[in-house]
């Protein structure tokens, strides 16, 4: 899919109009952003906005995500941290006393 984000009022207005006129290629619309379907038509609509508004329109490729796409230890960390008994514990402290990766360690690794 394509994520289209607008950075000016005019671009935002045209994005809204494009979404209204071509519902078929819009997966989801947010305030000043929208997800277009990953089709040539979706790309065509996104590129039209880009042609008109230049860098005020950002287009990114978005891939579907499943938790299983992420390494086991990351999933485990999220699961156990959300099941913590003391809500005020920051993750760093939570991880250090357990067999879990610290936040710095996670930051340093690309998916």
């Amino acid at each position, binding site marked *: 899919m394509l994520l289209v984000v607008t*950075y*000016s009022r005019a671009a935002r207005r045209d994005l809204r109009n494009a979404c209204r006129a071509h519902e078929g290629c819009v997966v989801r619309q947010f305030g000043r952003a929208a997800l277009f379907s990953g089709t040539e038509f979706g790309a065509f609509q996104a590129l039209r906005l880009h042609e008109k508004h*230049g*860098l*005020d329109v*950002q287009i990114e490729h978005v891939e579907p995500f499943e938790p299983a796409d992420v390494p086991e230890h990351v999933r485990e960390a999220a699961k156990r941290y959300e099941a913590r008994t003391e809500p005020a514990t920051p993750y760093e402290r939570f991880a250090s006393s357990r067999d879990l990766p610290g936040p710095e360690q996670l930051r340093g690794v690309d998916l």
Partner: protein
Amino acid sequence: MKLRVAGTTYTGTVVDLRTRPIDGTALAASIRGQRCLPAVACPEPSSVYAYAGHVRPSMGLRTRTALAAAARSQGHGTPQDEAIAECCAKLTELDCSPPDLPDPVDPVPEATVDDLQETVAAHRGRLTARREVGAEEEAVRAALRDAAMELSERETRQAAARETRELRRERARAYRDTLEERRRLSDELANLRRCARATLVDRCADAFARAVETVPGAVPDDPFDADPVTAALAVLRVARTPAPVVLETGRFGTPAAASDCLDAPVVRC
């Protein structure tokens, strides 16, 4: 004030142009310095003139905004003024011009490079084999050289394409960060101005209510419900008004009475 209309010069605090064919809107714009003609010489008008400088039956008025401008003309400040100035300064400092991006380069597909690497390896193997059996190797050597050269060229182009892509993304991101910052500052500025306006309106609300009762026109229960002409006249009475006010309303008996009531120079047309 000094005013020149169609060859006649008028001076004084009250000018009556009811018998002259003059456009009040043009005159008010001249007073605000947005037009050259008719020629007007007068003190600098404050921002309140943008709202109430031309009083006419067809006018609309954002009463609270106009009253806040009137409070400013009286020299009132607000606790937000410093933050507003700071915010404005930051906004003008932001360079929001779009950056120049290097032209996009067509990416070299990973598969092309992989294929070439395989070809080079195959040629190399063939060359070794021929050398071992003592066969003629010149043709294979040439093929290897060509393939290796093409591979290196493709790899260079691939690296250049990747670099250009990175650079384009980096610059675009920096530009969009600036736009985000501008959006954040504009929101903050709008909030601060709303707060400041509320403070100013509060401060002048009593004076405004008294003014609504004093100027000619209907007096509603809530002074802020007054019709635009009444409200504009009341705002002018509250404001400091060194520059002439253009009146296109018959609310006052005479232009001189209007000038007295509003404590302002008046052009009646």
